[in-house]
Structures are given as C-alpha cells and as structure tokens.
C-alpha cells in the first residue's frame, strides 16, 4: 500500500475512533477501560498490520518510519518543554525525591533481575549485547508510571488531597529516569560501526546525545528568534521536530532523549514556551493515535516469545515498583502520611511506554528486541486496563482534602 494512503487511513481511523470516544461508554465497565486505554488503537494496528490482515505491509511500515520518528521527537519535546525550572520549584523537594528514587530503584531492580535472567536464559536466541540492551530497555520502561485517563477518571484521584496530588506528580517526573536509562542504553550499547560506520565509546555517544540535544536546542532558539507569525512558528516546531528526530536516528540515538534535552533548554531559556506548548499539544493526540496504530501494526503477535516475556516483565515490574516506592518513602520525609497501598497507583502504564518501545524497536530489530517490544506492548495494555481499580485501591485510605 502507498505509504501516504496508509497514513490517511490511520489518520481517518484515529479521527473516527476519537469521535467514537465521545460517546462515553458506561463508567466503570471493562469496555470503558478498554476505550480509555488507547488499546483500541493498538488493536486496530495489529489487525491491519503485516501480522494481521496485511492492509499495512512491512514495506509500507518502513516507509512510515519518518512519521514515527516525528512522533517520538514531538513527545520528547513536549515532555521537555513542560520541565520549566520556575514552575518546578513551586513543588516541595520531597515530591521530586519520591519520584526519582522510586523510578531509579524500579529501573535498577528490573534491569538487574532481567540481566541476570538473560545471562542464563532468553526466550529467543540472542547475542550478549542484545541481552544487556533488552534488560535495560525493560528496566527503563518499568520505571515509568502513568496517570492514565482511566486513573484520572477515578473520582478519588480527582477529589484532591496530598496523596492524590503526589500520585499525579510522580508520573510527570519519572519519565526522566526512563529517558536517562534510554540515553544510557543508546550510548553504552550503541549499534556502533556496523550501523553508522563510526566507533565511539559509550561515554562519547552519551556526550553526542546531550551535546546534540543542546546544539539542536540552540538552533531552535535561533529559529524562534526569526519567527514572527503563527504559521512560521508551526513551521519552526515541525521542522525542528523532524530534523532533530531524523538526526538522532541517523546517529542511532533516541529521538525521545534528544527531543527532551531540546525541550528543557527551550522552556528554560525562552519566555514563549506557552505558545510552543499549546502548539505541541494541538498535534499531540493525532500523533499519539498514529503512534499507537503503527506500534500495533509493527507488533508480531504471532511470535510466542513476547507473551512469555510479558508475563515475566509484569511480575518483575510489580515487585520492583513495590520495593521502589517503599525505598523512596523510607528515604523521604513527606509532611503527610502515605497509605500502604499507594504504590499500586503507580503500577498502570500509558502511551509513553509504547513510545519507548517504538524508539527501541526502530534501532534494534533483533529477535530479543522484537520480543521486548512485544512484551512492553502487552504489559502496557494489561496494566492500563487494570489502571482504574489500582488507582481506586491506592487512594482508598487517603485523608480528606485540606
């Protein structure tokens, strides 16, 4: 199928499903959770993809990769641009401590356990480097939690209170841990000379990631200085998202990480960040929908290794999250009591996990990489569907709002 026609098909599907969502299914039903999870877009992608009805074949999917890169870069920028120093300092320091410590511990535990497991056994034949990469990718994804739409629709979360506030805050910050993990992965387990023809050390690739992000951010700032009209600003944002994503991909680095660094630089340097944020948010939904559909299409659901790895990953992640939150709360002095089951609220995952999987899958297309991609997709769907009861349970003991 022609790639452009495929893109329209995906856009039309996304739009139609978006309209369908406004019909609002009956609250509390599994059907509602499914419709709010984004899993429907993954399912559509899987059905029309190469492993399904083959309406989208592999060739078309490859041709649509620039679009995936744009989406990843866009998400990275969006995340970075929201990290404004002068806004962040309004939150108490212990909130950051909880977010970062629980994320780092979860990442470390999952990575360690999976690296150990992969040392002795993998669901598919894999080279040593592939095992390290897969373990770190899954560890990075494990650190992510999500205030999914399902969680936000939970009345107890919407009611307010410190505990609910903390539950909304943590998922906004822990992607930093994930993207740091991803940055390390793409640098220290870089595909190297084979892929790009250049041999750098891991540290040098890391410097290239950060330096590239800063340089691109500077270019973005220069570009914004010569922008006077809104259509020019759209062009600048679009051009920079495509260019930086493409550049990161050419160097086999993650567009998410490079976009994040750019976004942080812009939001803290320039006063126009609200304008940019609004612009980025306008296209966020269509890009997310397309990302989910394309991720679904790229999913090889006929390969059993992914299912096995997904079960393992979910079990490990739940355990690691529990320990991560416990550790974070133990080392942090919060001015209020956090209920024992609060950690359950951080178990659901959202589209950011899929974005990480796509970023990984674009570069590492080995058998274990594909199983990892599949495991992340499956675990995200399962944990998103469980999101609402988990958030409900997490907030069941919270004190009333002040």
């Amino acid at each position: 199928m022609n790639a452009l026609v495929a893109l329209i098909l995906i856009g039309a599907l996304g739009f139609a499903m978006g309209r369908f969502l406004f019909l609002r299914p009956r609250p509390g039903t599994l059907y509602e959770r499914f419709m709010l999870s984004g899993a429907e877009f993954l399912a559509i992608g899987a059905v029309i993809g190469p492993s399904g009805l083959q309406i989208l074949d592999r060739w078309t999917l490859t041709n649509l990769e620039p679009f995936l890169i744009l989406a990843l870069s866009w998400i990275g920028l969006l995340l970075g641009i929201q990290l404004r120093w002068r806004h962040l300092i309004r939150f108490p320091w212990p909130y950051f401590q909880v977010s970062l410590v629980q994320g780092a511990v979860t990442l470390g535990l999952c990575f360690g356990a999976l690296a150990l497991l992969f040392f002795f056994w993998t669901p598919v034949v894999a080279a040593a480097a592939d095992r390290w990469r897969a373990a770190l990718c899954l560890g990075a994804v494990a650190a992510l939690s999500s205030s999914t739409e399902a969680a936000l629709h939970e009345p107890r979360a919407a009611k307010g209170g410190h505990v609910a506030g903390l539950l909304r805050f943590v998922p906004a910050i822990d992607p930093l841990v994930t993207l740091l993990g991803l940055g390390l992965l793409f640098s220290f387990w870089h595909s190297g000379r084979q892929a790009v023809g250049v041999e750098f050390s891991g540290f040098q690739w890391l410097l290239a990631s950060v330096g590239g992000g800063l340089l691109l951010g500077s270019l973005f700032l220069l570009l914004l200085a010569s922008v006077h009209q809104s259509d020019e600003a759209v062009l600048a944002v679009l051009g920079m998202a495509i260019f930086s994503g493409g550049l990161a991909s050419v160097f086999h680095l993650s567009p998410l990480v490079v976009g994040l660094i750019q976004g942080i630089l812009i939001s803290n340097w320039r006063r126009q960040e609200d304008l940019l944020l609004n612009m980025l948010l306008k296209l966020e939904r269509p890009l997310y929908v397309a990302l989910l559909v394309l991720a679904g299409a790229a999913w090889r659901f006929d390969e059993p290794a992914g299912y096995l790895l997904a079960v393992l990953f979910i079990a490990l992640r739940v355990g690691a999250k529990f320990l991560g939150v416990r550790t974070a709360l133990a080392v942090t002095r919060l001015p209020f009591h956090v209920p024992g089951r609060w950690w359950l609220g951080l178990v659901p995952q959202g589209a950011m996990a899929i974005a990480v999987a796509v970023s990984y899958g674009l570069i590492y297309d080995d058998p274990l990489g594909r199983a990892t991609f599949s495991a992340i997709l499956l675990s995200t769907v399962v944990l998103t569907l469980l999101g609402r009861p988990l958030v409900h349970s997490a907030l069941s003991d919270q004190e009333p709002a002040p």
Partner: protein
Amino acid sequence: MTTFLALLVLAGLMAAARWIPAFGKLAFQTTVSLGFVLIFGFLVGRLARRIRLPRITGYILAGVICGPYLGRFLTGPVVRELRLIDDLALALIAFTAGGELRIRDLAPRWRSIVAVTGAQTGIVGAGMFVTVLLASPLFHLPPGVSVAAMAIAFGIFAVASSPATAVAIINEARARGTFTDTVLGVTVLKDVVVLVLVTLLLPVMRLLSLPGATFDLGFVGDLAWEVGGSLAGGVVLGYLVTFYVNGVGAVLPLFIVGVSILVTQVARQFHLEPLLLCMVAGFVIENATRVGDRFIDAIERSSLPVYVVFFAISGAAINLQAVRDAWYLALILVVVRLLLVSGATALGERAAARPNPMVRRWGGLGFVAQAGVTLGLASIVARKFPGWGEEARVLALAMVAINQLVGPVAFRWALSRSGEATEGSGAPARNGESVGARTPAGSRRSV
C-alpha cells in the same frame, strides 16, 4: 544576524550527519533531510525577502544550494522520496487557485481571460514551433529525427506555465485586483488548454517521428474522459468537502491534507487530472457554497511548510548539469518565449471589453515561471520518443531551471508595478494570526 547564525548551525549539523559513512537507513535520511529542507528553505526565504526577492525564489535557491548538484546535502534518492510531497502541494495549490477564482471578480474580465489564453496558446505555441524549426541546426540532432515533432513538443512546453508559482506569489504579495485576477484566470485556463493540446498533438508527433505509426482516434475519448471526468469529479469533491465542513468541521487543516493526498491517488487510478479536479473543487467551494472562507483559511494554515518543501525540492531537482550542457540553447528559447508571451498577452488584452494597461504592459511577466507541468510533459516526451525525446527533455529542464528562477522575481515585480501587491503596505491580510478575520477586499496571508 540570527538568521545567518541559524543557517550556519543547521548546515554544520547536516554536514555532521552526512559525515556519518552509513548515513542511516533511507527512512532516517529522508526524515533528517525533510527537516533540513523545511528549516533551510524557510531561512533562505527570509533572506531573499530582505533583498526584495520573493520568498519562493529563496525556497527554490535553498533547494538548488543544498541539492544533489551543488551542496549535496540532499542525495538523489532522498530528493525522489521527498517528491512524494509534490502531490500534496499541488493539490493544496490547486484548491487555493480554484478558491481564488471568484465569479464576481472574474465576470467583468472573462473576455480578457479568454482572449489572452487564446492569444498565448496560438502565438506562443506557433512562435516556438517556428523558432525550433529555424534553430534546429544548433541542436545537433541525429539523422532521421523529425524536427517538426520536436518543434511541436517545444510549442506545447512554451505554452505551459506554473499555476503553483503564480498562486504562491499572489499569496505572498497579498495581491488582489484586475491584474491579479487576469493572470490567475489565464494560468488556470491554460492548464486545461495544455492538457487538451498534449492529448491532441501527441498522436500527431507520433505519426511524424515513429515510422509505421498510425493515427488512432481513441485519444478523443480519453481526452473527454480526462477533462469531463475531472470537471465532474471536482464538482462532487467540492460538495463532499462542503458537507464535511458543515457537518463535522473538526481538524479541518488535517482533513484537507488527507483529502488532497487521497484525491491525487484516486484521480491517478482513474486517469483523471488531479490538478484540474482540485481546482474545480476549490472553485465550487468558493462560489457555490458558504464555506469558502473557512476552507481557504484552513488550507493556508497548513500551506507554509508544504510550500517551503515543495519549492525547495523543485530547486533541488533542477538539473544543473543539464543547464550547463544546454544553457545557450535554453537561453535563446527562454528569451524568445518571454517575447512571445509578452506580445501575446498585450495582443489578447486589446480584445478585452475594458483593456487594462497594466496587463497589456506587464501581464506577460506573470507567465514566465514554469515548473511541474512542463517537467511532466518533458518526461512524457522523453519516454514516448526515444530518438530525440531525451535531448528535448534535457533542453526543457534547462529552460525550466532558468524560468523558475527568473519567473517568480518577474511576476512579483509586475505585481508591484501594477499596484496590486499589498504586502508590507500595512494592508490587512485575508487571515492569519497577526491580523483578524478575512476582509472583503483583503488578500490572503503570505506564503
């Protein structure tokens, strides 16, 4: 200063990417190149405006500079990949062109438009035919080649002009008035005429140059289908779009982008002319419904990135090798064409009910630019006439290169002389964030 600095940083980053020996998969290359073209084109466009050149000339120059024949930031395969955007751009431009043709503005000028189109078709076509016949010894053609067939091809090439460039320059200059309406009307009408000419004259050329070829009247049916089908399809599409705008109305710019791509693909499948189809749809939406303003505004909101890429890639595709090989012949043909077009326009305008002295004097400069239509015709000729088609194509490429660089500047200058260009005069734009809603006499936002 910031523009120069941004250009330097951008070029440095792109050079770093090109330094990577593997330069990634084609998908990665295409992505980075697309982003590069968008930003580079935009910045060079700004610089061009500062020295009073049209922005689109800047976009085209940006393409030439970074294209495979000069800066080599863009490779040949990447340029071919990016040409996919041509369909989208041409459809959007055709929608805009149709939408710009308002019956109430055109009605008083219809005699002028028809007369200028007729004069250009006859005089320019015939004049170029004779010129090529006379200049044929300079072409060093192999023996046995039909010079007459080649002369007919160049006659058609010369009649064609670029609706895309005309619309882009009119938008950029925020031009509105009799001069603008006439040039736009003639450009659109000529597009149909060129389509008819190609269909009618290709069998004649085949008869002249291919031994044993017979005259097949089947082309009449094909032509009727192509023109009639495109007209009917355009009307249907116009009402379908109106139905969406009235009934749903959400994400209109994205919807139009999707429709543009889809219509082009479907039109090709059914052997219809996508440009004509979209022009008719734009015309119907503007003149037969009440959603014209919303529709055109939505197109313009998404048009800047598309225009930058379209014209920059057109520039990158300019074959500088061909220009170098055939520049003197091309220059002769370009000068002759310019004289013929100017003369024909002046003559045609005399037939108007109320001749406009500006059209008579400067109107010819509105038709200098040539792009996609001529290149498409040249490719058809190269494919169908292996004996001399390739030579004709190279010469046509050189002609288009010169015309596409000179044409926008000439048209922009003519618009200024006519007093209809309002950009920079403080006149309100038709829409845009920097201004308010559409004004009755306002022009549209700049490209």
